[in-house]
C-alpha cells in the first residue's frame, strides 16, 4: 500500500518534470513552424561534445576513485573540511572557475611560473586537455562524493567481518568494494557525462577556439545571432537524446548491490592498511586538495583588494540570491523525495534529462509559453527558482535515490510489519536514514542556484539583481576588481549555504 502510494507520487513527480522540460521544447518547435536538418558543422559539434564529455567523465571518475577510497578508510584531522571542500568547485559560477583555473594553469599562471623557475617550458592549457582539466576540476569532487557515499553505504558489519577474517586489502577490495563500485560508478559516469555535454563557455575558452565548439554553443548561436528557433530546438533534442542514451547505459551497467543490510552503526575501518598504502593515501589526498584548493585560493586572494569597492547594490543582490537559493533547495528536495519514492529505473532515468536542456532552452520555451498570458519580467525570479530546481535535480536524484532504495530494502519489511505508512513511514523510516543525503542535496541545490546566471537575463528584471548578474555587470563595465570581490562574496555565500546544509545533515561519522 505504502509502496503503491510511493510509486504514484514518483510517477506524478516524473510526469511534472517531463512536462516542465518538454513543454518549452514543444513551444519552440511550434513557434519555429517545424524542425531543421543538422548541417555538417552541427555534426562536428556533436562529435566534439561527445568526445570531451566522455573523456571528462572517465578521467573525473578515475581520479575520484583513489581519493574517495582514501577518504573512506582514513580518519584524520581536517577530514570533514576536506569533504566539504569537495563541494566547492562544483558550485562556482562558470566564469569565476575559469578565471581561477587560468590563474593557476594559464600562460602566466602559478604552475607555469614555477616551471619556468625550474627551467622548464610553459605548459599550454588551451585545447582538448584544457577542457578535460576544467571539467575534472568541476566534477571530480562530485564523483568523489558519490563514490564516498557508496563506500559509506557498505554496512559497518561487513568491514568488521573483513577485519576479523584478516582479509588482505586486495580481498576486501574484491569482495566488498568492487560490488559497490559496479553499482555506483555507472551512475557517476552518466551524471558527469551529462553535465559536460551541456558545457559551453568552459569548453570554448579552455578549448582554445572553434575546434572546441559544443552543441550548446550552436544552440546559443541559433537562439541569439541567427534567431533560428527550429535549429535550436532540433539541436536541443539531439542533446536530450545523448543524455537519454547515457542514462540508459548507466541503468544497464549498474548491478544490484549484494552487500545486504546493516545496523547503520558508524563505520570503523580496522582493515585500513598500513605501510606504503598509508603513504599513498596521504599523497593522493594531498594532491587532490592542492588541485581543488589552489584555484579557489587564488580567486579568494584576487577578490580581497576589491572588497573596498563593493557596489551599493551588493547586499540586496546577495539577499535575492540567497532567497532564490533557499527556494530552489526546498523545491529540489521535495521533488527528488517524491521521485525517489518510486525507485523505478525509468523514473531515475528521467531525472537526468534536465541536464540536457540548458537554462537557455528552458527559459526561451517558457518565455514563449508565458508571454501571451503574463509579462515575463514579473515571473523572472520564480522562473529562476524553477530552472535552478530543474538543473539541480539530476544530481540530487542520483544522491537520494540510492539512499532511499537502501532504506527501503534494509528496513522496508520491518516497517511493513509495523504498519508504517504514509507520513509516519516518511518520518520514522525514510527521513532519518536519508538525512545525510538530503543535507548534501539541499546544500548542492542551494549552492548551484547561487552561482547560476540562469534565465534572468532573458526574462529581464530591472532592480532585482542576483550576485552573478551583478558580477557580470561589473565585468562588463571594466570594474574587474569589484567583480572579483563580488565573486568572492558569491563564493563565500554559496559555500556557506552548502556547508550549513551538508553539515546539518551529516551523520557523526561522515
Amino acid at each position, binding site marked *: 500500500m505504502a509502496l503503491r502510494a510511493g510509486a504514484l507520487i514518483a510517477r506524478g513527480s516524473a510526469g511534472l518534470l517531463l512536462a516542465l522540460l518538454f513543454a518549452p521544447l514543444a513551444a519552440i518547435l511550434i513557434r519555429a513552424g517545424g524542425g531543421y536538418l543538422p548541417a555538417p558543422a552541427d555534426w562536428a559539434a556533436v562529435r566534439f561534445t561527445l568526445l570531451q564529455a566522455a573523456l571528462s567523465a572517465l578521467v573525473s571518475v578515475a581520479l575520484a576513485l583513489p581519493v574517495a577510497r582514501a577518504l573512506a578508510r582514513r580518519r584524520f584531522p581536517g577530514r570533514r573540511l576536506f569533504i566539504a571542500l569537495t563541494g566547492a568547485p562544483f558550485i562556482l559560477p562558470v566564469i569565476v572557475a*575559469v578565471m581561477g583555473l587560468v590563474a593557476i594553469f*594559464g*600562460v602566466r599562471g602559478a604552475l607555469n611560473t614555477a616551471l619556468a623557475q625550474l627551467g622548464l617550458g610553459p605548459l599550454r592549457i588551451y585545447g582538448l586537455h584544457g577542457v578535460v582539466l576544467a571539467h575534472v576540476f568541476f566534477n571530480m569532487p562530485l564523483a568523489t562524493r558519490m563514490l564516498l557515499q557508496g563506500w559509506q553505504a557498505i554496512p559497518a558489519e561487513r568491514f568488521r567481518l573483513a577485519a576479523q577474517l584478516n582479509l588482505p586489502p586486495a580481498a576486501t577490495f574484491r569482495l566488498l568494494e568492487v560490488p559497490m563500485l559496479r553499482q555506483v560508478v555507472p551512475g557517476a559516469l552518466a551524471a558527469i557525462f551529462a553535465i559536460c555535454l551541456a558545457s559551453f563557455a568552459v569548453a570554448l*575558452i579552455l578549448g582554445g577556439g572553434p575546434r572546441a565548439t559544443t552543441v550548446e554553443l550552436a544552440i546559443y548561436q541559433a537562439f541569439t545571432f541567427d534567431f533560428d528557433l527550429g535549429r535550436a530546438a532540433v539541436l536541443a533534442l539531439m542533446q536530450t537524446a545523448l543524455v537519454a542514451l547515457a542514462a540508459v547505459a548507466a541503468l544497464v551497467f549498474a548491478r544490484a548491490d549484494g552487500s545486504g543490510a546493516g545496523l547503520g552503526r558508524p563505520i570503523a575501518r580496522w582493515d585500513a592498511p598500513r605501510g606504503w598504502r598509508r603513504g599513498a593515501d596521504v599523497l593522493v589526498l594531498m594532491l587532490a586538495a592542492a588541485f581543488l584548493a589552489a584555484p579557489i585560493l587564488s580567486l579568494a586572494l584576487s577578490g580581497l583588494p576589491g572588497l573596498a569597492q563593493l557596489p551599493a547594490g551588493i547586499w540586496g543582490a546577495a539577499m535575492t540570491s540567497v532567497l532564490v537559493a533557499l527556494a530552489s533547495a526546498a523545491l529540489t528536495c521535495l521533488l527528488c523525495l517524491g521521485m525517489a519514492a518510486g525507485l523505478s529505473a525509468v523514473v531515475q532515468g528521467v531525472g537526468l534529462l534536465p541536464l540536457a536542456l540548458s537554462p537557455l532552452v528552458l527559459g526561451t520555451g517558457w518565455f514563449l509559453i508565458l508571454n501571451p498570458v503574463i509579462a515575463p*519580467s514579473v515571473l523572472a525570479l520564480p522562473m529562476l527558482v524553477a530552472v535552478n530546481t530543474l538543473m539541480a535535480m539530476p544530481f540530487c536524484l542520483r544522491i537520494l535515490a540510492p539512499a532511499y532504495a537502501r532504506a527501503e530494502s534494509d528496513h522496508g519489511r520491518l516497517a511493513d510489519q509495523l504498519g508504517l505508512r504514509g507520513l509516519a513511514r516518511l518520518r520514522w523510516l525514510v527521513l532519518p536514514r536519508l538525512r545525510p543525503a538530503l543535507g548534501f542535496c539541499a546544500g548542492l541545490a542551494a549552492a548551484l542556484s547561487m552561482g547560476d546566471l540562469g534565465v534572468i*537575463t532573458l526574462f529581464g528584471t*530591472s532592480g532585482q539583481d542576483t550576485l552573478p548578474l551583478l558580477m557580470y555587470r561589473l565585468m562588463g563595465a571594466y570594474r574587474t576588481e569589484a567583480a572579483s570581490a563580488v565573486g568572492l562574496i558569491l563564493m563565500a555565500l554559496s559555500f556557506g549555504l552548502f556547508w550549513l546544509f551538508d553539515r546539518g545533515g551529516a551523520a557523526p561519522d561522515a
Partner: protein
Amino acid sequence: MKHLVLATGCLLASQAAAQTPVLNVYTYDSFDSDWGPGPQIEQAFEAQCACDLVFTPAGDGAALLSKLRLEGARSKADVVLGLDTALMAQARATGLFAPAQVSADYALPLAWTDDTFVPFDWGYFAFVGNADGPKPHSFRELAASDAKIVIEDPRSSTPGLGLLLWVQKAYGDEAPEIWKALSDNIVTVTPGWSEAYGMFLEGEADLVLSYTTSPAYHVIAEDDDSKVALPFEEGNYMQVEVAAMTAHAPQPDLARQFLAFLVSDKAQSILPETNWMYPAVKPATPLPAAFDQIVPADKALLMSPEEAEAARAPALDAWRSALAR
C-alpha cells in the same frame, strides 16, 4: 533628503499612477547597470517628459533583438536601444520597427541617412594592449609576430562579429588567409567581451579585441595610462550603436520624444564616460583628452547593414575552417 523625496514620490505615485504614462525601453544589460548610462539618462529624460522611463535589460545587442522577436507584436517595448549596424538588416527585416523621423547633426565618420535607426554612440574596434608590450600596425604584422591575442567568438558576441566583418571588409577574398595566419597568435576565443578582457587583464595575452576607447576608461577612472589601443593601417572597423521605436509602440509619441532626446546634447554628454563610446553628436563641452581620435576618419571601415548581413554566413564558415586547423 533622499527619504523625503522617496516618500513624496510614493505619495504622488499613488495619485499620479493613473496619469503618468510609462515608456518601456529595452536595452542591453551594461547600458542599464549602475555604472552604465541608464540611471543618468533616465533621470534626465524623466525631468522633461512627465513620464516614467523603464529600462528592461536583456543580455547584449543580439540577445536584445531575439527577445523582441520572441515577443513579436505583443511586445510592450516602445524603444529598443543598443542594436548595431551588424544587426540592423535583421532587425529591419522583422518589420517590428517603425521610422521615427529623428535626425541630428551627426559627428560620425560617415553620412547617416537611415530614418528608422537612430545612432546614439559609436566606436572603433581595436586591439588593446600594454604600452610596453607588442604594438603591431596591421593584421599582417600581427600575424607575423608572436604576439598572443584573445578574441571573442563571432557566433556569440558583438565584438567577435565586429572582428569577423573587419577582416572581411579589409581583406575580402584574402580574409581566410589572414585568419589562417592569425591562428597561431590566438590564445583562445571567449563567448563574450567580459571574459576576453578579464583574461587580458590577467596577463593571458598581449592583446585583446576591444575598443579604441578602452584605454580612456583606465585613464579617467583608474588614473592608469598603461593601456593602449592600436590603430591599424588597414583601418579600424566601426561599431555604430542605434536605437529605434517599435512599430507597435504603446507610446509612439513618447518614443519619438525619447529618440530625439537621445541625440540631444544632454544625453550625448552623458554617454562617453558611462558607455565608453564616442558620442554620435559633438557635445557642447569638449571631451576629455583620453577620447582623442587615434584613427583618422578616412581609415574608418564599416559595411552597410545589407552588406554585413550578406557577408556574415560565408565569413563565419571561412573563420571556422581556418581556425579549426
